[in-house]
């Protein structure tokens, strides 16, 4: 996993649309507006949590088709993915096999337990995923 220098991280985070509000709501149209703010990874996001210390880090991420997050895992954190729009393939790397999970019309949501290696790829243009993770945010494991 690549570790980012702080300045790189700030640059990337500035491209994300953050939320400092106590009351916050979004429509699908709002989410379409961020499709043109994608960084070099082909992704852009709305953060719904108030800050990096929030107990739950919650975001909506707009992916270009084929935008890919390399295999990684978290030692103590669950990751939750819920499909909002489009489709995704998530590979779960188990001890002796790889399980392909598709978030599409068939599957609504996936909860990944700690210490589980996974990757994720968008299979359609402007696919949107709702991601949740336990906070606080740790920039050493930040995935661009």
């Amino acid at each position, binding site marked *: 996993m690549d570790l980012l220098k702080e300045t790189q991280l700030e640059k990337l985070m500035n491209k994300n649309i953050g*939320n400092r*509000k*106590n*009351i*916050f*709501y*979004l*429509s*699908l149209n709002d989410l379409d507006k961020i499709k043109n703010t994608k960084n070099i990874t082909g992704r852009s996001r709305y953060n*719904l*949590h*108030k800050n990096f210390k*929030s*107990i*739950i880090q*919650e975001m*909506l991420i707009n992916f270009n088709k084929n935008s890919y997050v390399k295999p990684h895992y978290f030692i103590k954190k*669950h990751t*939750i993915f*819920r499909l*909002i729009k489009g489709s995704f393939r998530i590979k*779960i790397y*188990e001890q002796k096999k790889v*399980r392909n*999970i598709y978030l599409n*019309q*068939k*599957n*609504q*949501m*996936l*909860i*990944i*337990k700690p210490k*589980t290696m996974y990757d994720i790829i968008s299979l359609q243009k402007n696919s949107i995923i*709702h991601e*949740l*993770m*336990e*906070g606080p945010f740790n920039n050493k494991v930040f995935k661009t």
Partner: protein
Amino acid sequence: MAASTSYKKINILENSNLRDKIKIFKKSGKKFDRIVLHENEEDLIQIMVMMYRKSFNFPFHYSINKSESFSVIYGKFKILFKEKGKIRKIILDKKNKIIFKLNANVFHKIIPLSDVSVALEILDGPFKRNSVRKINE
């Protein structure tokens, strides 16, 4: 109510499974039920599928010092909330707003507008008893 399909490392919420749960809920005569997706009360992410009949009625309330995320899965909701002394409203459905998030103690009221409305609710954990404050309490 049983939750998602569970494997050693993951849980999957399948749409067919969810549709079955909604059917059971419709037949049950209950005004409200939930599918708990987190593993236990200690989890920092408390995540639930909430199912409501139109007749559901719960007063303005908030979860004390917890963030609360509410996003529509099926149907339509009216959300009333208090902001700067005024009551404001938003409509939550796939055509309007899809997600409503509170990052502070804000009184709000959930009004299901469809015969059956379903939402995903996410609260900061761990679960604490008596952590909901109702208005005028």
